[in-house]
């Protein structure tokens, strides 16, 4: 397990709803993680470039606009291309149940739906980064 877990919190696409992204970024910081927040309106390419340059252990994607089935697959594809296979990828936002299995098949490790607690997400990250 790395000494300090490094997390990229990213907002891909046009969605500006950043309440959840900012809450989780702050909760990660309070939990002792190093957090890099991309800011809004990132293309999948920008997200993956940031993950590569920042050498992160975790990528957290926040999407509330319904575009997750376009944006997340593209990000997973680019991450594979960049050989970022050891990075833990989690997704949060308005993600219907029916999409979760598809996202996991593409390599997303976990999906956190509305109502998820920051403590549960932090616990998940600690446990799964340790395993990698």
């Amino acid at each position, binding site marked *: 397990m790395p000494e300090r877990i490094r997390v990229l919190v990213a907002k891909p*696409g*046009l*969605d*500006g*709803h*950043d*309440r959840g992204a*900012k*809450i989780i*970024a*702050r*909760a990660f910081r309070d939990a002792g993680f190093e957090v890099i*927040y991309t*800011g*809004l*309106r990132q*293309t999948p390419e920008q997200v993956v470039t940031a993950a590569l340059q920042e050498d992160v252990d975790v990528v957290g994607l926040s999407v509330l*606009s*319904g*575009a*997750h*089935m*376009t*944006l997340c697959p*593209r990000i997973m594809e680019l991450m594979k291309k960049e050989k970022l296979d050891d990075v833990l990828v989690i997704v949060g936002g*308005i993600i*219907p*149940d029916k999409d979760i299995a598809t996202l996991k098949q593409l390599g997303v490790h976990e999906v956190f*739906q*509305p*109502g998820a*607690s*920051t*403590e549960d997400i932090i616990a998940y990250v600690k446990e799964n980064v340790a395993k990698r």
Partner: protein
Amino acid sequence: MAFTTISGVPVSEVYTADSVADLDYAHDLGDPGHPPYTRGIHENMYRGKLWTMRQFSGFGTAEETNQRYRYLLEHGQTGLSVAFHLPTLMGYDSDHPMSAGEVGKCGVAIESLADMEALFAGIPLDKISTSMTTNAPATILWSMYLVVAEKQGVSWDKLRGTIQNDILKEYIAEKTYIFPPRPSMKLIVDTFEFGVQHVPQWNVISVSGYHIREAGSTALQELAFTLYDGIEYVEWARRAGLDVDAFAPRLSFFFNAHNDFFEEIAKYRAARNVWYKVMTQRFHCRNPKSAVLRFHTQTAGCALTAQQPYNNVVRVALQAMAAVMGGTQSLHTNALDESLALPTEHAARLALRTQQIIAHETGVVNTPDPLGGSYFVERLTLDMEKGCWDYFDRLDAMGGMVAAIEQSFPQREIQEASYRYQKAVERKEKIVVGVNDFVLEEESSIDILSIDESVAERQIARTQKVRESRDNAACRKAMETLRSAALAGNINMMPPILDCVRSYATLGEICDTLRGVYGTYEEPAF
């Protein structure tokens, strides 16, 4: 155990006459329909006219949304409210790379006059009032609506409706901005001037607290930042030489209806009182209508839960009740499935029925301000008012709202409140039924609306057809005139934008032209 409102304001065990010893009826309340309008803006309130039942709606292409509008009107809805998809709100056409995956998802895809014509096909614009959630591209979308009216043969003085047109809360909370603050404020002042001259019954702005609250603010922050945004718009318009009494009667507001029943009612009552004092004492208005705050309400999307979604029907009914008892002029009630997706037809109808039950079955419409005189509600209202003046002093000291946004002040205040609330929920100091208590192990799933990718294909094909079939020379000429006007900086932008729209220039093309002159906005680092 501490008893607090959902915003964290301490609540006493009991309120008595002593709790409101400082209340002065004439100064703080007044009768309904009389200054300072705390008790409502009409003497007989809903006896004269019910609030407008206006469900915010839009998805897929213009045709699909047109069907939904007709459905809602058939079932007794009394006004329209257009939800545009994110590419439209961000000034991109559907074939722009940034639009990938977003087409028709959060709202309806509108990018040229052809789309707007299809959206209102068979809906006579002189018979219905329409609200449009247009912020950064408000001038363009309003122009499209005005040209559709022209084509229907409806003169602009007959049109009623509202453009949201509130960019300040975009920088603060919702984040669908395009241009930097200064050119954005100029465009807004242009709509004020144009509306007064040509579309006299139109509300040229809906100054919105809804999104500030959804971003996690307290009730007081929602109220104070929204009213101060209102002050900022009046200041900028006045500085541009507009007569306050000409445009102020066309300003409207938009608030959230969250879960804390009495705190929300106090918020609406204080809103009217504070705005009356702002307009009369700060801006010295002479027209009595300039000081009357009219508002729309939407129940809190952020209070809906994905868990046990039918519980949302109950939440929405209680929130809507607060809005009505607070004297709203129009109302959107959320559908039970909106924490999962855009609403299905059935869920949208149930949301509308909720308003109809409040209006026709509960009796709360019989008399204005039914909670006036409640020691508790009056105390909350006075405290809410005082909290506004305190925030106004701080914002004045920073040099106004644009300056405060540049210093990230409202953004930081909201983030703090949002994080505090999240932690309170996780410590179970605040209970959210079905989420942190009364949880079901096995949730049954409900049917939700999904928007497939064929919408994007159809939309892109239509826009390409528009670009091929229009008179491209005329379109280019209109865009050149637009660019010159933007560069000149002292010309009202509405007439050149109307000409671009008439020539079937797309929203993305018009925004590209304006981006070329005005630049774009990036928010301060987090």
